[in-house]
């Protein structure tokens, strides 16, 4: 906008100087300063409804001339500056040749004067918006110091929830706007860069036979955008805001506008950033009990139910005896990560041509120990070079060129193109036995993991096969050092995306804009599990996968300015869009490696291939009108008609509508202390397209299919290829999911713009939600993808911006963000929540979205469902024994009526919970992963206009996580809590650690002592003292018996970001020929306040959807950065 104003000013100056020089002129001049007296450099001053105007210089001074006739007409003079409230006043002519007019502009605390992109190229003053669009400036994104644009947004936008997957290099993030309204679709918003959609696909790799939970983390395509290239990010939050994008926009839209060139001298900027990172928490593992079973050491045993170790701190420690050696597995394997970033950008241009060019290199190495450092730690003689030195790193190169050329006065060509090259080494994560976490947390404390190769044989060595004598080994899971240095997961991406835009303005009232965008990426992946890796019996596996992802988007927009054409305050936009998305993946799997340490496909005796190909086309029309009534009521209405090849042929086209109204009531009603007040209402519809090819079914020849319980078979069998029918029947009537949203809001500014408040309340109904419905299996098919669920999300959002201190040498800005969202699945397959309550559980539709999270009517989306002990509130008939040892069955809710609350635990006569209640089934737990509210508190203090200190606190309250890792580690005897365990020696007077009242009491207690979540123990054995022994931990407290006790509050408050920046312009910068130089010291995630006992409450099992599941997820990190900017 600034560019346009200066360009227009220039043109007008040229035209009018020639015509008015001969007539009498009046000189207008003055200063423009802000509320604390500082000059506002580059402010625009114009005479309203004329072409006369000027801009302020570095002292805030402006000067221009107008004809005397204009001056005599007492025109309105208007001063504006970005981030400040513009001011309009009457220019009074005093019969002098000169009029002095000074302005003081106040801070625009609500940012009302900024122009935001509302979609399809349309722009609107924020003041006139009736919908929720949040605008984040590029500098705020850059300051986060993150490589990924999405994680940089944390804490900046109300209602945009972002969860970083882990602390590994190039990590991914789950993000969503205003809760989830889909079951099978993506939760992620549509991402638009410079008017064209780009891919934010997260595609899992790791072989079709492994579950998503066992894949290495793969980089998301959102990480390909260089944050230094971003001018602004607009987040379109409600369906009304995003409706113009139709059937791809029900999750909202994130629109990125990249930096452009500017007329004038070429400006050059170089940025260097370096940082370190490290684990932000230590996992609680026990150190007092060794490897083995039943209290005895057993070599090769997977679990830690062995002897009590003679360790300092343990109640049985005896310093006269040899101290048992234990190992800090986590501390030894983790180190400091490091990162650096170079970015060079240049922009400039002439009157007709501008350019912006940037190049960057970003490198990040995670905290996992490098092999070179590992070698210093061990005495093992290595017979071979490991497969990789750095287990987890990320390297990205970007080049971006954006240019604009004024071909003719009314024809502008703009082009932008980015090339990205990404290379990633990642670590196998999560629950899989191939993964890092399982071996790391499950290995007994007295087993030294570090020699991960048998020094003699050089074969993989783990706690379950410590003297590996065969290459394949006999491991129950992998040594984590083996996972780091011998297993390999690599990803290499080449990506080109950008657009060409032709802007034609044949008249002053109409313009045409055509944008042709493309996004192409080739993602090459390699996964190596060498001979000796646990999976596949240690025979070695190689997977190579090439993924091509391509999108074309052609968008034609015709704009009519009603002011000019009809003399009406309206604008009309009509458009047409064609979109094509193509995806292809080839995956080749080699099994049974022949030569060790040689990873070519020819070296594998069994080779399988998988191919997947998809194409989807969409074609749309849209029309949008805006109307300004009395310059205080702003109306917008639009409709979009979408057709897609993914819609059922019988119903190929669907409409999405929107309407919004914004009333600036402060123009009509003068309220004390209120500077600005706006009421807004919006209604809109947006959609989510069905997955490709849900219309069709057919016959397939799967390379691998599950026969249950991790057993896989293939249809290429005995050298022959077989086919079988699809178990999913096609749906010719599939429709897009539809989100209908109503929102109301108010934007207020008080006390001379010192306080600004935005408040929004919304209610969204996602109908026709697509999910997999059960088909009667005996018909020969057992599922179908169909529309049939209704999900509600409603919430409140508010933002408070304040400027408590505004002085020349000290200013303090503060922002508090709050966003709550509640979610409910209202209906599935015609069954409402109320009806579901009265139905047999087996008849109620339910879809699992992760191991524990399910979707079912009457429940929050993702509520955990799982095994429990016999608990109250579920109508459970528990099993117990009477005084004579005879089995009795008790309807616990009835027998103990009035004494219990939901989830209290029934304690049998023997003192333990009942794990074997009648008709043991999954129960709904009442807990879910969705936070009740999220928010942030941001403060920025500026000193002397040169030093900026900022601090961002990020808050998430109320969500829960199933700490299933804890269940597993209880079972395996390595969790820190299992130090409180009973061992038979404790009661043996001949044992060295025997002490009446100490060892004899150790590991014993009441079940009520270890109940979480406020649950009480009720039943005949409530006061019974029991032994927390191997059997207790491995069965009653292990997996598949009760998850509620390990569901934990995932609320957190994080010191997300803290930053100190200094802007330098002095003799030194002059000496270096620099315009300015700045440096910044920043840190992220330094402190986390949480009750969560696992690695981190922000953890997420899946990369692109919330799961609330922690099962050996990778840990998170803190990080700190030092950044230097040189501006020429």
């Amino acid at each position: 906008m600034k560019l346009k104003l200066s360009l227009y000013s220039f043109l007008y100056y040229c035209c009018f100087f020639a015509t008015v020089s001969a007539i009498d002129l009046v000189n207008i001049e003055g200063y423009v300063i802000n509320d604390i007296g500082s000059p506002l450099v580059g402010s625009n001053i114009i005479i309203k409804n004329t072409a006369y105007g000027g801009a302020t210089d570095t002292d805030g001074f402006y000067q221009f001339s107008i004809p005397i006739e204009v001056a005599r007409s007492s025109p309105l003079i208007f001063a504006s500056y970005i981030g400040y409230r513009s001011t309009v006043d009457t220019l009074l002519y005093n019969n002098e040749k000169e009029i002095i007019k000074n302005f003081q502009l106040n801070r625009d605390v609500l940012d009302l004067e900024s122009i935001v992109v509302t979609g399809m190229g349309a722009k609107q003053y924020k003041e006139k918006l009736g919908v929720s669009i949040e605008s984040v400036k590029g500098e705020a994104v850059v300051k986060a110091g993150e490589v990924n644009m999405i994680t940089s947004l944390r804490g900046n936008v109300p209602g945009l929830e972002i969860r970083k997957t882990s602390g590994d290099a190039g990590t991914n993030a789950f993000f969503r706007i205003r809760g989830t309204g889909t079951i099978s679709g993506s939760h992620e918003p549509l991402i638009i860069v410079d008017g064209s959609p780009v891919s934010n696909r997260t595609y899992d790799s790791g072989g079709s036979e492994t579950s998503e939970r066992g894949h290495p983390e793969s980089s998301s395509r959102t990480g390909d955008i260089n944050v230094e290239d971003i001018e602004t990010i607009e987040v379109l939050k409600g369906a009304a805001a995003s409706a113009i994008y139709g059937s791809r926009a029900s999750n909202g839209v994130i629109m990125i506008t990249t930096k452009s060139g500017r007329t004038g001298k070429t400006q050059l900027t170089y940025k260097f950033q370096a940082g370190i990172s490290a684990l932000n928490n230590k996992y609680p593992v026990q150190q007092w009990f060794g490897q083995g079973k039943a209290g005895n050491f057993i070599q090769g045993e997977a679990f830690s139910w062995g002897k009590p170790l003679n360790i300092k701190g343990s109640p049985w420690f005896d310093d006269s005896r040899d101290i048992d050696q234990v190992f800090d597995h986590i501390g030894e394997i983790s180190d400091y990560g490091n990162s650096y970033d170079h970015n060079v950008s240049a922009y400039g241009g002439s009157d007709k041509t501008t350019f912006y060019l940037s190049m960057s290199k970003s490198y990040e190495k995670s905290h996992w120990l490098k092999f070179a450092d590992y070698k210093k730690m061990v005495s093992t003689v290595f017979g071979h070079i490991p497969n990789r030195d750095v287990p987890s790193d990320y390297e990205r190169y970007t080049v971006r060129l954006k240019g604009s050329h004024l071909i003719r006065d009314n024809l502008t060509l703009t082009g932008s193109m980015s090339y990205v090259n990404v290379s990633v080494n990642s670590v196998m994560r999560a629950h899989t036995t191939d993964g890092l976490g399982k071996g790391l947390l499950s290995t007994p404390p007295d087993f030294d993991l570090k020699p991960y190769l048998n020094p003699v044989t050089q074969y993989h060595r783990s706690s379950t096969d410590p003297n590996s004598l065969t290459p394949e080994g006999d491991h129950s899971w992998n040594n984590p050092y083996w996972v780091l240095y011998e297993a390999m997961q690599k990803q290499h991406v080449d990506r080109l995306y950008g657009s060409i835009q032709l802007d034609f303005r044949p008249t002053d009232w109409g313009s045409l804009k055509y944008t042709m965008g493309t996004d192409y990426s080739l993602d090459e992946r390699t996964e190596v599990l060498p001979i000796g890796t646990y999976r596949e019996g240690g025979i070695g596996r190689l997977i190579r996968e090439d993924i091509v992802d391509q999108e074309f988007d052609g968008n034609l927009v015709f704009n009519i300015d009603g002011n000019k054409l009809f003399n009406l305050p309206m604008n009309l936009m009509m458009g047409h869009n064609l979109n094509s998305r193509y995806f292809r993946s080839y995956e080749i799997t080699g099994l049974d490696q022949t030569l060790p340490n040689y990873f070519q496909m020819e070296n594998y005796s069994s080779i399988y291939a998988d191919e997947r190909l998809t194409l989807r086309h969409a074609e749309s029309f849209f029309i949008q009108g805006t109307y300004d009534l009395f310059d205080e009521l702003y109306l917008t209405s639009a409709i979009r008609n979408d057709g897609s090849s993914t819609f059922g042929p019988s119903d190929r086209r669907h409409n999405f509508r929107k309407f919004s109204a914004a009333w600036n009531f402060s123009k009509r009603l003068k309220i004390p202390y209120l500077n600005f007040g706006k009421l807004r209402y919006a209604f809109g519809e947006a959609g989510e397209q069905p997955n490709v090819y849900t219309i069709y079914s057919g016959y397939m020849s799967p390379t691998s299919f599950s026969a249950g319980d991790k057993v896989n078979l293939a249809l290429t069998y005995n050298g022959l290829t077989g086919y079988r029918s699809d178990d999913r029947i096609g749906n010719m009537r599939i429709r897009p999911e539809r989100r209908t949203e109503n929102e109301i809001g108010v934007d207020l500014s008080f006390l001379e713009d010192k306080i600004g408040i935005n408040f929004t309340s919304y209610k969204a109904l996602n109908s026709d939600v697509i999910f997999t419905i059960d088909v009667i299996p005996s018909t020969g098919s057992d599922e179908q993808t169909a529309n049939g669920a209704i999900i509600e999300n409603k919430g409140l959002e508010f933002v408070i911006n304040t400027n408590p201190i505004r002085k020349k040498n000290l200013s303090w800005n503060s922002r508090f963000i709050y966003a709550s969202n509640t979610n409910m699945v209202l209906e599935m397959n015609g069954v409402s929540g109320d009806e579901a309550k009265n139905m047999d559980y087996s008849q109620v539709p339910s879809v699992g979205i992760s191991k524990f999270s399910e979707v079912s009517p009457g429940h929050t989306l993702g509520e955990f469902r799982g095994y429990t002990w016999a608990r109250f509130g579920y109508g459970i008939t528990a099993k117990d024994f009477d005084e004579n040892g005879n089995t009795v069955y008790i309807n616990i809710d009835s027998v103990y009526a009035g004494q219990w609350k939901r989830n209290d635990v029934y304690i049998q006569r023997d003192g333990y919970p009942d794990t074997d209640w009648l008709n043991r089934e999954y129960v709904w737990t009442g807990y879910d992963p969705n936070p009740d509210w999220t928010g942030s508190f941001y403060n920025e203090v500026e000193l002397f206009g040169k030093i900026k200190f900022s601090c961002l606190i990020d808050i998430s309250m109320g969500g829960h996580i199933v700490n299933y890792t804890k269940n597993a580690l209880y079972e395996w005897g390595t969790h820190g809590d299992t130090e409180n365990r009973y061992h038979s020696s404790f009661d043996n007077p001949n044992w060295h650690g025997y002490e009446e009242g100490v060892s004899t009491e150790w590991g014993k207690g009441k079940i009520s002592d270890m109940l979480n979540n406020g649950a009480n123990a009720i039943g005949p054995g409530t006061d019974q003292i029991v032994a927390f022994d191997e059997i207790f931990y491995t069965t009653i407290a292990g997996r598949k018996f009760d998850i509620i006790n390990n569901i934990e509050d995932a609320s957190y408050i994080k010191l997300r970001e803290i930053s100190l920046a200094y802007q330098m312009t002095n003799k030194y910068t002059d000496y270096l020929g620099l315009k300015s130089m700045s440096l910044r010291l920043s840190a992220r995630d330094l402190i986390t306040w949480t009750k969560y006992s696992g690695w981190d409450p922000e953890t997420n099992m899946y990369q692109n959807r919330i799961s609330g599941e922690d099962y050996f997820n990778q840990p998170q990190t803190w990080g700190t950065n030092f950044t230097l900017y040189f501006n020429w």
Partner: protein
Amino acid sequence: MNKLKSTIFCLLVIFLMGCEDFLTGDLLDNDPNKVDDVSIISIESLLVGSQVSMYGVMESYLNRMVTMIMQQMAGQKLEYYSDYNCSPIDRNTNGRWSAIYGTGGLIDIRTIQEKARDQEKYLVLGIAQMWEALIISTAADLWGDIPYSEAANSNYESPNLDSQREVHEAVLELINDAINNFSLGQVQTFSSNYDFSFGGNANKWIAVAHTLAARIYLNWAEVDGIQAYENALFHAEQGVSSSNGTGDWRALHSTTNNEQSIWWQFTIKNNDYMGAGHLLVDMLENDNDGRLNIYFSGDPVIGVKPGETQFYGSDLNSNTYGSRDYGVEFISWYENKFIVAECQYSMGDENSARITLNSILDDLEVKWQTIESTCSLPRYENVGGNNLYEAIMNEKYKAMFLNIQTWSDWRRTGFPNFIDSDGESTSCAGGTPRRLLYPEKEKSTNPNFPTNDSIYDRVQNDPN
């Protein structure tokens, strides 16, 4: 202005005409990742798909479940612990039930039969009929009444249950038809390697058809009495006879990935989920039976009882039942001979029954001595009456290790009785289950299904 008018005109044309063609075309009108026209898939390819899919039915969860009920194996962890302790969950059978009827199952097997009839490929027709007979008769053994006549048939949206009797009678007719088709031979070319069971050998198929028919008749003995034994014996006499195992119908597995034994895959990927069952281990130990170390590894071999919360049950012997390429025997020569022995005993010919029993043990001893030369099996020279009956059934139970038929044998005869050598019951508190729960998915979608079924409900051929 002319340019503007032209532009507006062009825009209007675009708006009015639209681009409907843009939504159709190659890769848009079909799923390129699937074959949508079954006519271009050979029946041989469908047969491969069905055979492999049916291995996934016959050797996986259902198979494991029965071995736990019969205490040949023990469930030690997670849901297997619950299963072993007679608290199975109906959702656990969803996958295998769907596989019986759906992809690769009944719906595809019937397509093979239809195409085979059209193409006069009678051998393939017979093979497909035998697969249908095996999985449907097994399903009726496990659940009792099941959908059959209306199943996998597009004319029926909610298939009704057929009684177990109706299902078995229909299967017997199907077997009879299969035998006739095998007798017709192959009119059109059939590449024998597509038949993973017998390489297209019609005579072997006819033999297993008779043994399967004999098994089904025998399973109705509790209801049909002597008639059942007569029919069973009639078919068993034409059943699988070769004790070298070449006539046995078993799953084909190899050491190649995704072709490996289902038992092997399950065991190595689910550490300690299952181990040796107490009852079988106790019987083998008590009889000083050499198969103890043929079936299981470990010294000593340990079998786990229901209620025990230890993970110490011995693993399957990695050279035999726990090997990478072990395939479960669906129909075997020794089952055929045990049927003969039981029929002989039940029809009053104890002497022949004893001779048959001992001859089976002779042959089995020879078989297992190829693995362990010192392996010896017990003999029953002077046993008669109910003891002989018990010996026949106990030996059948021991011989048919990991075979689903053991459950029907126990329901029919009460042998083995669930008491160990210490005289203690090895049953769960509620007793030994008599059928599987219908799968949760079928119950929740098909209104014709009972929702409150129990594992202690008696099926039709198990009235007492």
